[in-house]
Every structure is written in C-alpha cells, then in structure tokens.
C-alpha cells in the first residue's frame, strides 16, 4: 500500500507541476460558467438558462473534452518512462507491476477528478446562487460524478495504449485515434445503423450497443433525467431504456475497472 501511495503522490505532484491541474480546472470552469450564462443564447435570450439546458450542453461538450484531456494526461505515463529507462529501474525495486499501475492511476486520476469537481462545481454554485433550488446540486452531482468516471475510464484506456506500444509517438497517434473513435465515429456508426437498416434496430439493441462506449454511457446517465426536448439524435431513442441510472453508473464503473485490469495483465506480459 505504501508503494502505491508513493507512486500516487509523485504522479499527483507531477500533475500539479505540469500545470495540468490548473489548466483543466480553468478549461472546465470557463466552459461551465460560460454555458451557464450564455447557454440560452441559442434560443434568443441571454441570461442563466434552465438547469436541464445547462447540463445538456455541458454534457455534450464534456463528452468530447474529458476523454481528450484524460488521454493527453496519461498516454505517455508508461511508454515515456520506458523510453527514459526509469520503468526498467522501477521494476527492479520492491514494487509490483499492479502496484505501479494503481499508483499512477490514483495519482493521475486524482488530478482529473479534482479538476472536474472544481471546474464544474463552480457552475453549480453559480446556478444555486441564482435559483436557490437544491435540485441543482442533485443534477450536478450526477453530472460531476459521471464526468469523473468518464475521465478515469479514459485514463485507464490510455494506460492500455501506453503499455501496448514501445514508442511515445505511436502512443500519441493511437490515443488520438481512440479519442476520434469513441467521441465521433462510434455515434456516427450508430446513427448509420439506425437510419440504414430497413427494419431499424430495436431500442434494446441500441442500448446494448451504447454500452460499448463509455462516452455514450456518460451521455445516457446525464440525459436520462432531463426533459427530452434537450436531447436529440440516437440518444433520444436510448434514453427511454429500461436501465436505471444506478445501473448506468455501474456500467461506467465497469469501464474504469476493465481497462485498468487489462492494462495490468498487459504490463505483466510485457517484455522490457
């Protein structure tokens, strides 16, 4: 346990030192405050939009940004140390490979989690000051917790990438493709399926397909509770699915644990 904490502490301090923490918090807070105040501009009014509009717009932006940021923060965490030789050195220390993965995950995950909490938390506070409606905190806690899980999921996915390649540049390319696939291509493919297949796919089939993408699960978690007018596209079909919000959260959690476990397995079989 001490070993995990030592690694986690170093990674967390690295995150502070590299200004990751500050930049992510800044991006998220500018984004969330901006959307809170001007989210209604599209409908012709300037001023604080309704909670559901705000969360819907925040969710549709966060679903692009959070995976990208998580991949950026972590894509080189193993391949970078492999290139500089410290990974080999660490493996001669009394620390196991799983301890190293978990330590890094806790350290870098805390950076993402804390930045998400602070950045979007500001928005919740601003909204509460305006409306004094406690429901805001309810909606926002769902949003923030799921956003953190989404970030952790892509941190774990980037470890998979970082451990599968032996060059930093390859890891960067692979991370970009991964982001492109989960954030854009996957949904386009789903839409194509919906429109292209004559009989259409069942609502259940669509929901099951969406479980294959943590970004879609994140959208579902957040949009399920909102007015359907703020939700459109393939999502609208899946929103009225049979799964409860708790189950969607568990699925998102599984998308953290699975890639992380797989990363440990890959690390154990990796030749240095």
């Amino acid at each position: 346990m001490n070993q995990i904490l030592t690694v986690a502490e170093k990674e967390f301090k690295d995150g502070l030192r590299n200004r990751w923490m500050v930049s992510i918090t800044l991006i998220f807070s500018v984004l969330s405050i901006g959307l809170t105040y001007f989210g209604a501009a599209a409908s012709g009014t300037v001023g604080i939009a309704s909670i559901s509009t705000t969360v819907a717009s925040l969710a549709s932006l966060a679903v692009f940004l959070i995976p990208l940021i998580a991949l950026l923060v972590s894509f080189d965490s193993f391949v970078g140390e492999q290139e500089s030789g410290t990974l080999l050195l660490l493996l001669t220390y009394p620390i196991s490979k799983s301890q190293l993965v978990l330590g890094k995950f806790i350290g870098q995950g805390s950076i993402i989690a804390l930045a998400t909490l602070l950045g979007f938390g500001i928005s919740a506070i601003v909204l509460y000051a305006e409306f004094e409606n406690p429901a805001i905190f309810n909606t926002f806690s769902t949003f923030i917790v799921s956003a953190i899980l989404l970030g952790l999921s892509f941190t774990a996915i980037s470890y998979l990438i970082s451990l599968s390649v032996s060059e930093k540049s390859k890891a960067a390319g692979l991370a970009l493709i991964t982001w492109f696939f989960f954030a854009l291509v996957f949904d386009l493919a789903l839409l194509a399926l919906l429109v292209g297949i004559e009989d259409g796919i069942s609502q259940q089939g669509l929901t099951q397909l969406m479980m294959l993408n943590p970004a879609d699960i994140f959208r579902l978690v957040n949009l399920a509770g909102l007015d359907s007018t703020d939700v459109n596209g393939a999502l609208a079909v899946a929103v009225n699915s049979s799964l409860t919000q708790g189950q969607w959260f568990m699925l998102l959690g599984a998308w953290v644990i699975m890639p992380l476990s797989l990363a440990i397995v890959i690390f154990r079989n990796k030749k240095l």
Partner: protein
Amino acid sequence: MASPLVSVEMLGKTYKNLTALKSINLQLAEGEVLGLFGHNGAGKTTMMKLILGVLSPSSGTVEVMGLKPDSKEAWHSRSKIGYLPENVSFYDQLTGLEVLTYFAKLKGYNKKQAINLLEQVGIANAMKRQVKTYSKGMRQRLGLAQAFIGEPKLLLLDEPTVGLDPIATADFYATVDQLKSTGSSIILCSHILPGVEQHIDRAMILSSGKVLAMGTLAQLRSEANLPIAIKPRGLNGSVLEDATLNGFFCKTSNSLQVPEDKKMTVLKQCLSYEHLADIDVESASLEKVYHYFLTRDSAVKPSSRGNVL
C-alpha cells in the same frame, strides 16, 4: 564457506530468434567484486536483467540470496539490491532530491537518507535544482546514489563510470571498495577497462552470449600467457650482450617481454648489474587480456565454421 550470494547455473536466454546468453555458470560470494566485460551486444545487460529478475531465464537457473529473482518471494530482497542501468535519464522536471526521495521511499527509506546519499556522491549542493540542469556526470552520480540506497548486499552497475571525470571516478571506486569491505557483492559492467583492475576480484569476459574467460586477473593473465614488460634503465648495451636477457628484448617497445614464469629469473639477472638505475615491471593490462581473449575467439571461429562446412 557461506552459500554464494548469486548462483547462476547453465543459464540461457533466447529471444525470438536470437540467443542472448548460453550456458553461463557463476558463483558470486559475499564481498566479491566481479567485472563483466564484453563488447556491445555480448549479453552483459541481459545477464544483469536475469539476475535482477526483470527477465526470466529460458534455460538454467538463477538464484540470488537463495531465491529465484523473478519469483514473488524475492520481492522483499529487492530492497537489498541496487541497480544502475545504462543510459537512464531521470525525471527531468524533478529536483535531484525529489528523484532520490522517490526512489528511497520505494525501498522503504526516507528523505534524510536520500540527502545523506546525495552528500556521499557529492551533488548535495545541487539537490534543489531540476535534474534537467545537471551535467552528464552529475546525472551519473545521481544514478549511483540511487543504486546505493539502503546499503545493498548486491550491486549491479552497468557502465558506472561513463561520463564521470577522473576525480569522480576515483570517488566512485573508493565507494566500491568501501561497500566491498562491508560485505556487499558487486557486479560491474564496463567498457572502460583502465582503472577497473585494482577494484575487481574476478573478471568474466562475454562474447555473443558465451563466457570466453573467467577468473581472477592473475588466472586470466596466466591463461592468456601474455608477457610482462620489464624496462631496465641504465643497462645500456648490456641487455643485448646478456645471454639470459637478449632473447626477451623487444625493439619496438624498447623493453623485455618476459613470460610470467621467467619473471623472477629475468628480474634477478637485471638486478645483478650494478649500474642498473631503475626498473619498471608492468603486467599485461586488463585491456590486453581482454583483447587477447576476444581475438582468440574470433580466430577460432572461422576454423570451426570450416569444419562444419
């Protein structure tokens, strides 16, 4: 005698289609310093990785302190092993002290010990600076400090003196001698041969994954049967007139090239001249011994290949 600290038997390591090491045998006692020599790709680093347990052997066995280094049981003994990899570049953004504290903590030590080690290797004055501002020699000293964490029982050093200035090299060897006197065993891998010989007990010369020669320097010298250079001064022409001496005289080096077993005879003969002003006796250097075994190996190879054909 106590059981050996490192025991290697018939060790072999093959990568996909490359034999990195073949039937290596080695017993390293406590407090013994072994020099591991060989050109690039000879298998030195592979051998270190096998002893460290980062790699698992393809054949044969490795035991360190009675345990297989790649097994789970050996984890705790890892804090008693120090390793300095070749070409390691530490976290550039961190200060020297932060880097060393991190590694010290992973071995169960703290910042205080890290500071002591930085003082020991002589970079305590720069410990608050980022590693990216360090010179090559300072980085190497930091690496050494890292390997010395926790007074290891076994040290594996891959090219430890690369980038060190002569004074730092002397400091390094002083530390090696000190660690040796406290019972630590050291495996030293180096390309830089001069200066190593006084500090190693035994040498192992590797080439293409095989042991070309192993033993104490005296053993290797006698096996190589390289002559000793004796340079008498003040004898003028007497050397050429002396029946015992003139056979050994070598014009190009202007010295007597004497085989090991004739050393005393020749020396006594030289000393019998009253006008002898000075005499230098130089045993074959490690470098010469190394070259001897390498060239002998490459000289043997073509003929053995010829036999196959």
